[in-house]
Structure formats: C-alpha cells, structure tokens
C-alpha cells in the first residue's frame, strides 16, 4: 500500500515547488503572446471548427440523425478531441521533458520526480479549461445544464492516473533513447484515427472491435460521449477494470522511472 502512494510523496513534500513550476509551465507556453492565456481556449476552438467542417459538412457523420440538434455534433467532436489532446500532450512532451529541463537534473539540487507531475498537471489544466468551455457550449445548445458533466471527472480520473504512469515510462526511456520522440510524433496522427473520436466503436466492423477496446482511450471516449450526449450511464464493471489497469501502469511506471533516473545526469 505504501508503494502505491510512493509517487505522491515527492509531490506532497514539494507542493510549493510543484505549484510554482506548474504555473510557470502553463504560462510559458503562452508568455509574451498578445492573447496570452486566451490561446488555451482558442486552439481547441479552431480545431473543432475544422473538424466540424470536414466531418460534419464534407463527410456526413452518423451522429447527425441521433442528436436533437445538429449543433451537438461539433460538440461531440470537441469532447473526443479534448480527451485525445490531453493524452497526446503527455505522450509527445514526455520523451523530451527531462532533457528540456536539463539544468534541474544536473545543476541544482532538485526532486526530479516532480517534473513529470508538472507535465501531467499542465495537460490536466488544459483539459479542465476545455471541459469548462464545453459545459458553456452545452448549456447554450441544450438550454439546460448537462447533468452528465458532473460525472465526467469520475470518468477522466483513471485516465489521468494512467497517463501519469505512461509519462513516467516515456520520459525515462526518452531521456536515454532520443528516437522515442520521433516515434511518438509519427504514431500520434495514427492514434487519432484509430481512436473513436469522429466515429463510434459500434460503426467499427465486429471483428476489429476487440482491438479497439485495447486502446486506453476507447473506454473513456465512449463513456464520456454516452454520458454527455446520449443519456447513457457508466459501465461500473469496466470502470473498475480500468482503474486496476491504470494503477498497475502508474505503479510500474514510477518504479521504472526511479530506477532509470540514477543515470539521467550521465546521459544528458
């Protein structure tokens, strides 16, 4: 049990540092630009506009017939994209993250474990900002508060834990192996099309479906969409299973990171 909480210990004992760095990490992506923090809202909006045009107008989506308002379809995409962006941000930033913060590793006395927490924290902040934006849109489109949104954090929590675990792995390996960054950048777009963002798993031919459920994003995307747009509940058995997997990845990732970090200063 204590091992399970080991990754949280450096976070707690360095909470002041964590907040400082998290704030800085969020700010530094927009610092100096005219719109500043506005970009965090604007970037997903632009994406949604493009995808709405391509998949809603050019290629007709199957969801148009299932929803009350045609304006809901872009919001379905938005829901999928915000979850996917969260995942991708962590996956693509992690390989270079330790290297990018080289001076923290080699030149000052610093708890290196905190770095990955910041990576996850920034992505989570952007996800929360997008979710807030989504809620506002839903209220405007539906004319009422989307009750399913209250359960959304519950669905996303195990994904955050899973991504933190992946971040431990990827950042540790990426510090040694530079190719990992390129590899993940190449896989990124592929992953977007094999995740049920612009379509539902039900549209996937039966014999491929099992493969889709192996994608860690599938369960979250499907559940969240059902919850927000189609009045579906949470499959609790799947939920429990997801948590077990997430915690396993999380603990293993932290253990891996702690072993690998002994050599960080030597390789960067």
């Amino acid at each position, binding site marked *: 049990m204590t091992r399970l909480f080991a990754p949280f210990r450096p976070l707690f004992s360095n909470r002041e540092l964590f907040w*400082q760095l998290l704030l*800085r990490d969020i700010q530094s992506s927009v610092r100096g630009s005219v719109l500043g923090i506005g970009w965090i809202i604007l970037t997903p909006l632009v994406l949604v506009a493009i995808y709405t045009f391509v998949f809603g107008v050019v290629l007709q989506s199957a969801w148009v017939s299932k929803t009350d308002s045609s304006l809901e379809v872009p919001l379905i995409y938005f829901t999928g994209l915000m979850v996917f962006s969260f995942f991708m941000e962590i996956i693509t930033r992690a390989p270079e993250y330790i290297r990018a913060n080289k001076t923290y590793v*080699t*030149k*000052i*006395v610093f708890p290196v474990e905190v770095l990955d927490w910041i990576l996850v924290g920034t992505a989570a902040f952007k996800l929360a900002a997008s979710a807030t934006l989504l809620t506002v849109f839903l209220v405007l489109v539906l004319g009422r508060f989307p009750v399913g949104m209250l359960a959304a954090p519950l669905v996303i929590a195990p994904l955050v834990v899973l991504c933190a675990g992946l971040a431990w792995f990827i950042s540790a390996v990426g510090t*040694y192996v530079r190719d990992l960054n390129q590899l993940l950048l190449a896989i990124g777009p592929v992953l977007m099309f094999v995740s049920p963002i612009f379509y539902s798993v039900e549209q996937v031919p039966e014999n491929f479906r099992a493969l889709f459920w192996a994608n860690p994003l599938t369960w979250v995307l499907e559940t969240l969409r059902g919850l927000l747009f189609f009045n579906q509940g949470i499959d609790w058995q799947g939920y429990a299973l997801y948590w077990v997997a997430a915690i396993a990845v999380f603990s293993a990732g932290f253990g891996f990171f702690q072993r690998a970090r*002994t*050599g960080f200063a030597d390789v960067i």
Partner: protein
Amino acid sequence: MTSDGIMIEARGVSKSFDRGRGQLSRLWRTFAGTGAENAFWALRDVDLDVRGGEAIGIVGRNGSGKSTLLQILCGTMRPTSGTVKTRGRISAMLELGAGFNPAFTGRENVRLSAAAHGLDAPTIAARMDSIEEFADIGLYFDRPLHEYSSGMYARLAFAVSAHVDAAILIVDEILGVGDSAFQKKCQRFMHGFMNGGGTIVFVSHDPGAVTALCKRACWLEAGRKMEDGVATKVMKSYVDSIYSLSGPPDRTGDADAGEINDPAVGGQDPYWGASNRISISRFSGDAPRHGFGGCLIEDCFISSSGSTLCQSVTGGSPVTLHIRARATRRIDCPIAGFIFRQSDGQNLFGDNTYLTYKDNPLSVLPGQVFEAKLSFVMPYLPPGRYSIAPSIIEGTQHSHVHLDWREEALFLDVVSSPVRSGKVGLVMKSIYRGETDVDGAIAR
C-alpha cells in the same frame, strides 16, 4: 550536525562514464547494474571530509573531475562506487543562472528557485525584500531575465543561495562574474556563513580567490586526489605543476631550469618580511591575438638574469621581460610593449620601447627576428592571477598600427603574499620612524 561536526563525508567515491554505443543498451546497463562499457573514469577513490565552519577549495585542471565531484556532492549525480553523506540543506551554484527561466522576472525566478530549495510560500514571501536588497539590481528585479547581464544573473543567483538556510554551500566559479563591489559582498557573506558554522565547497581557477576564502584546498588530477591540506601549500604545488607541465617541454632544454634560476627560494624582503613568489606560465602561442599582421610574436618570457627563462620570480626582485618577434614584411619603426593585467582585466602597469628609441628608429627586414628587453623591478603582488599582453606596433605612440597583440600570453599566479592593501606592493627604498630634526629633515 553530529558531534564530530563533519558535514560532508565522501568515502572512496569513484565515477565512471559510459562511453559505450547504443542508447537502448545503455538504458539496459543502467537497469541491470552491469558495469559501464568502454568506461571513462572521471573520479577514482576520492575521500573527503569537510567540517562545519570550514571552506575547502577544489582545484584542478579542466577535466580533472572537479565538476563531477561537485555534482556527486550535491546529489545530482550518483557515484559508480563509494558513498557520500551530507548533513543539512545544500545550496549549489554549479552554473550561472541554472534553473532560472529567462522569460520570467527576477522576482518570479526567486520564488521558484527558493521553492526548489524547499522553502514554503510564507517563508519565501517573508524573505523576498531581503533577497531583493542583497541582489541589488534595482528595477531589473521585476524585469524578465533575458534583459539581464551575466553580472545580474550572478547577483540574483547568489542572493537566493544566501537566503535558503543552507548548511552547505557549493560554489563553482560563479564569482568570476559581477563587479568587484558584488564580489566583496559575496566574500563577506561567505565569511559570515562560515563563522555561523556553514560549510563551503569552492571551485575556482583563480588561486588568489581560493586562498582568500579557504584555509584548506584539495587538488584533483585525472580524477584522483593529489594533495589535500593547507590551502597556500596545496595551491603552490598545483600552480607549480600546471606551469611545468604546460607548454613545450623542450623550451629551455633543461626541465629544471626554472628551479635553478629560481631566486624565490629563501628570498625574503627586508621590509615586507616575507617572500612573494610569483609563478609564471610558458608563452602560450595560441593565446587570443589581434593586429594587422606584419610581424609575429614568437616568444615572450621573463628572466631574472636577463637571459634564460624563469618559471618563477619573487616580488621585489629585478626581472626582464623578453619579447621576440619575427617580421613578415619590412617594418620601419617597431615599438614593443606590454601591459600587465589583473585577472578581471584591469591594467596594472605597462611600458614600451618608444621613448627610449624614438630618435633611433630601427628597420626590420622580412624574416628578421628582433627582440625587446624591458627590465623592471617586479612589484609585490597580492594573491591572484595576472597576465601579460605583449604587443608590437608600428609608428609612434600617438599614431600607430597594431601589428601583433597577444592577450594573456603569459599567466602569473600568486598564492601567498605579504601585500595587505592596494593592488600592488611597492619596493620600499627605506622606512623610518623616529624623531624629526628641527628643520624637519630625516635623521638617521
């Protein structure tokens, strides 16, 4: 702190770097704990005990393992074998502005840097004014760091380190930047820090800076400890070794020429009451140079007898600076000169051949070698590093062309000195204390 007061305890510390191929196999070796492939040993079996209230200077050439040792003492790098135990919070200044983000203001960076040292928000807020005052960079404190000069960086970094309740301060060469007022402030702070029981590990290339701060020094050579003990003694061996090893060994044809010509041995000035040994490096042919060409300074050295090179002289003794140059074109009025500088670039003194030879111009033909000898009494020098920049110019003192000018062609190092005040100590002709005659003339 334990009863024995030892703050840093390093036992048999060795570090090997893996120079093997393959990123993945390297990751594997980290996990498997198998030895490094094609290992490079940066440190070998280093033991080090440093007590509270003690400052130790670490010296050694580039690549001798100083930085590796510091990183291991800080805990940012793990030794391959051996153990390091430290007590109390460590504040490390290994690199100028490490951990600072240039896009953020000084105040924001202080907040972060203090948090990285483990201070909580209320403590940081309470100390902010004091940090701002220590840094003393005025309005720049609220400007982003990319507007800072390197001196301001150093001020900010030092100001933070001075306020984080560190028990051990590890400083690598950071004080070289910043003006002398700030350096004085740092010196004062570090002395106060030691008196309060703090421990300092200090790395510098400037022997004067080491002996000014540290009573003890440790000399590393190729990853091993060569000498550890009284700072002035260790620095003397170190400085001697770099000068006897650098430069082509066949220059004088006699490796011990420096020792034979060394008037420093036993030489004591009657007025200063102590000897002021000055070690001199060999002429460095690849020293930074500028000038329009036309001649090439081929050699520059100091002798005490007026003929052969000396590796050390004493302050207060007569010396001759030799400058030899080869003309690559016809030169009509060559002037040879030099400037004697402090390590911070301040000119202490200098002279040239112009006034003596202005009515007796010399013409040098291409390929011809000419020599200038400037004899003077070497002043007493405070501890520190000095350099001599020889130059050949053509024309007059007022209207001339630089032909060849070498910065830092010679380095001079002083480890111990009787000079207590001023930039140089003069050779006193006589010193008298007693009654004055009625007419004020000195009675002797």
